[in-house]
C-alpha cells in the first residue's frame, strides 16, 4: 500500500473490504449510542419518579 487511492481501491476489492470495516464501525457506534440513550432514559425515569414522590413526604 503506497498511497490513499490504492488504500481505498483495495485492488478492486474496495467495496468488500471497506464494507466490512465500515459495518464494524457502524455497529460499534450504534451500540455505544444505544447504551448512552438507555442511561439517559433511566436517569430521566428515576428523576420523574423522585419528583412525583416528593409531595407525599
Amino acid at each position: 500500500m503506497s498511497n490513499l487511492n490504492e488504500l481505498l481501491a483495495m485492488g478492486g476489492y474496495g467495496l468488500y473490504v471497506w464494507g466490512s470495516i465500515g459495518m464494524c464501525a457502524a455497529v460499534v457506534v450504534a451500540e455505544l449510542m444505544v447504551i448512552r440513550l438507555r442511561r439517559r432514559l433511566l436517569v430521566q425515569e428515576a428523576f420523574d419518579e423522585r419528583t412525583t414522590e416528593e409531595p407525599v413526604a
Partner: protein
Amino acid sequence: MGSINWFHYAAPQRFYPLAGKLVPWFGALAVVLTAIGLYIGLWVAPTDAQQGEAYRIIFVHVPTAWMSMVVYLAMATWAAIGLVFNSRLSSMMATALAPTGALMTFLALWTGALWGKPTWGAWWVWDARLTSELVLLFLYIGFMALHSAIDDTRRADRAAGLLAIVGVVNLPIIYFSVQWWNTLHQGASVSITKAPSMATPMLMGMLVMALASWMYCIAVALARVRLIMLERERHAPWARQALGSLT
C-alpha cells in the same frame, strides 16, 4: 492477586463503582489497539498471493468470529454461576454480554459474506461453519427474547440462563465444523496446536485486532452491566444515590 476477596465485589453496590473505574481503561485500550491493528492490517501487511486485497477482511472477520464464541462462553458461564449460586450479579453479567455477543456474531456473518462473494462467488452457502454460526446468532436472540418475555426478573434470569447453557453445545460444532465436515469454509490458519500458516505481519495484525475486540467487548459489557444494575436496583439506596449523581 491472591489476596483480593472476589466475593466482596459480588454485591452490585460494590461492583458498580469498580466497573465504572475499569470501563475507561478497557475502552482506551480498545481504541489504541484498533488503531495499531488497522495500521498493520491495512498498511504494513503484504497483499495475499491467492486472495489479493480481499483477504484484508480477515482483520475484522476473524476477531469478530472469535469473539462471537468467546462472549457466548462467558455469557453461559455467568449464567451457570448465577443458577448454581443464585447470585444476582452473575445473571446480570450474562444479560449484559448477550447484545454484544449477538452483534459480534452478526459482524462475523456480515464480513464473512463480503469475503465470500469475491472469493467463493457466493454471499452465503449452507455450509456447516456458516450455518452453525447462524444458529449462534439465533441462540443470542433467543436468550434476549426469552429474558424480556418473562416479567419476573429472577425467573427470566433462570430460564434464559438455562437456554444459554444448553446452547453451549453449539460452540464445539462451530469450532470443529471445518474438520468434521467437508466445508467450503477454509480450515483454521491459527490454532493452539500448530504453528500459524500465515505471514508474520498478517498474523500480528489479526492478533492485535483480536485483542482490541476483547478490550471492546469487556468495556461495553461492563458499561452495560452497570446500567442493568441501576435499572434493577433503582430503589435501593446506593442506586438512588448513583442515579442522583447522574442528573
